[in-house]
């Protein structure tokens, strides 16, 4: 992207971004030893114009819908300044690079939807206005509007645009699973698309079901449920409906499961019965329960690093009643403190999640009793351990990383209501994903593109 750092970027940086930074430094509670601010260096957001999508051979009937989905995805990506309300005279088959350059646009997206067999093909072109060429293009299968994959197929195209422009993964083609409390006091698992659409229930157990986590292939979720009266760990195959249970050879509560990156093993906590600890179990093969930690303290909420060689978890092993975040070798051994604990401070940190991109662990906590929870991010790569505070307003809990490694979903509350929020660790931008629902412990899926593309192929041929 260095080649695009034109005078425009300098102007935008000075005008748009500096005031944001200074506003955040004010009127917020501080965590001792924690710097305020954003996880990444602030980046230039190139202006992107989206021309109205055209249609052929019947594609015109869905062109504007597909365009609307993609335009919103790209806005939600927080990577571009999206140019709306384009002048009518610019709409045409030929792209006038000189005109767009004068308007200050770096990227221009054009799309054409063509009817094809049972569905459509979307032809996307991303134009580099500065270099006056098509930077990249692609053809995307879009099923009929009635198909459950219609929106997700459009999201896949959105992520392709992000990849073309930045060579970084997007997060549009993904979902968020979470526990939702009903009026009866039970909690079922629900999920919603990354853009807040397509809200629907996954389970109907009539009990408390918590802590969902997605398998790396996006086909399964693992969670704990009180179906038998005691919390046990289960896996549900979202495509077949098949459910498997992690056996419970010893007494205790089996809680807070998550997947190993191999997709076969799950790691979870067994709490109670005098000894608590972390265990792994190969749920694909139905074997091989292994103990990682054992103590009289509670080690909970384990999450593997993307490579699988380390693990982060939450523990009260300090014995001071204030849980902290640790990392440890995945084979066990001496844990290292990650959260900004200072002796004598009642600082409380829980719910770690290791980003799939980069060595970052997000968690939530507070410095003093009574303070609302805020999201913090620890950078654990390369020997340094910098922690930054990411959110500053309302209540923010249980962060989960998006597959793009920069967005996080959290449950929370603002003055206007509670729900799920999406926070961008680069810009600090906060988007409301769901409001008016009692949602908690959200889990962001990996990219669902491989899974959906495979299903589109099997249904269309």
């Amino acid at each position, binding site marked *: 992207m260095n080649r695009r750092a034109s005078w425009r970027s300098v102007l935008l940086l000075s005008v748009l971004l500096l005031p944001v930074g200074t506003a955040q430094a004010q009127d917020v509670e501080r965590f001792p030893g924690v710097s305020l601010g954003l996880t990444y260096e602030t980046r230039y957001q190139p202006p992107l114009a989206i021309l109205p999508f055209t249609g052929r051979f019947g594609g015109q009937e869905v062109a504007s819908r597909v365009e609307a989905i993609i335009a919103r995805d790209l806005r939600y990506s927080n990577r571009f300044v999206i140019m709306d309300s384009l002048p009518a005279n610019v709409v045409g088959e030929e792209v006038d690079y000189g005109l767009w350059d004068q308007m200050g646009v770096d990227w221009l997206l054009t799309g054409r939807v063509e009817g094809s067999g049972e569905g459509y093909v979307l032809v996307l072109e991303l134009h580099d206005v500065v270099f006056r060429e098509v930077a990249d293009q692609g053809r995307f299968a879009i099923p009929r509007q009635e198909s459950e994959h219609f929106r997700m197929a459009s999201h896949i195209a959105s992520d392709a645009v992000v990849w073309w422009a930045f060579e970084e993964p997007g997060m549009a083609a993904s979902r968020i699973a979470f*526990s939702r*409390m009903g009026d009866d*006091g039970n*909690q079922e698992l629900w999920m919603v698309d990354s853009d807040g659409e397509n809200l629907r229930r996954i389970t109907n157990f009539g009990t*408390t079901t*918590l*802590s969902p986590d997605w398998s790396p292939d996006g086909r399964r979720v693992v969670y704990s449920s*009180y179906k038998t*009266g*005691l*919390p046990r760990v289960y896996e549900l195959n979202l495509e077949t409906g098949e459910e498997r249970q992690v056996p419970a050879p010893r*007494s*205790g*509560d089996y*809680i*807070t499961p998550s997947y190993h990156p191999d997709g076969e093993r799950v790691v979870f*906590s067994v*709490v*109670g*019965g*005098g000894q*608590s600890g972390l265990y792994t179990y190969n749920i694909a093969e139905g074997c091989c329960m292994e103990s990682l930690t054992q103590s009289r303290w*509670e080690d*909970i*909420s384990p999450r593997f690093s993307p490579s699988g060689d380390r693990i982060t978890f*939450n523990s*009260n092993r300090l014995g001071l*009643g204030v*849980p902290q975040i640790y990392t440890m070798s995945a084979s066990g051994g001496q844990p290292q403190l990650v959260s900004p604990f200072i002796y004598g401070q009642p600082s*409380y940190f*829980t*719910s770690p999640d290791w980003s799939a991109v980069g060595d970052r662990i997000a968690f*939530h906590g507070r410095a003093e009793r009574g303070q609302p*929870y805020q999201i913090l991010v620890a950078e654990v790569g390369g020997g340094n351990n910098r922690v930054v505070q990411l959110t500053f307003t309302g209540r923010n*809990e*249980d962060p989960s990383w998006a597959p793009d490694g920069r967005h996080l979903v959290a449950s929370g509350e603002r003055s206007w209501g509670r729900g799920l929020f999406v926070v961008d660790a680069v810009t600090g931008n906060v988007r409301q994903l769901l409001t008016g629902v009692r949602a*908690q*412990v959200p889990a962001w899926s990996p990219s669902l593109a491989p899974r959906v593309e495979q299903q589109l192929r099997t249904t269309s041929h």
Partner: protein
Amino acid sequence: MHSRLILVAFLVASVPLTACRREQPPPPPPPAEETTEETTQPQQPDDDNDAAAERARAIAEARSILEERVHFPFDESTITPETEQLLLQKVEVLQASPNVQLRIEGHCDERGSVEYNLALGNRRAEAVRQFLMDYGISGDRLQTVSHGKERPLAPESNETAWAQNRRAEFIVTAGGDQINPPS
């Protein structure tokens, strides 16, 4: 403690006479145990009903002692003196009712995270279980489970509601028809 001992003494003296009758309610066949033969005078149906009613009342009270909730301080699993009194009463019922098994459910108030409160609720349930075991109740009869903050009694967000929600609940999971008053 004195009043409790007196109560125990009273119950020891009075209850065993009718204990066996509960299993085989009147009318006869008469109970087989010798003690019953020796000590039970022929009774009128009215007296019989009175004794049965008294027995039923004592059993109901024993059950409510077993099921009475106990509460905890903020962010702690400490057994307070009030909780200790309630747990000692449960010990007596459990000693008199060897077939009764309990599930101890630990609960938290809404402050704190979902998953960490599962651990904290478990510490509370385990603290109660350990207390009962220290008084001789077999751990095999006592199962624990944490519900974290997911099953509040009071939905409000204030000190009263939080104090109510920081609790252990007791569910009779076996031997519910064999609860005996303290003996």
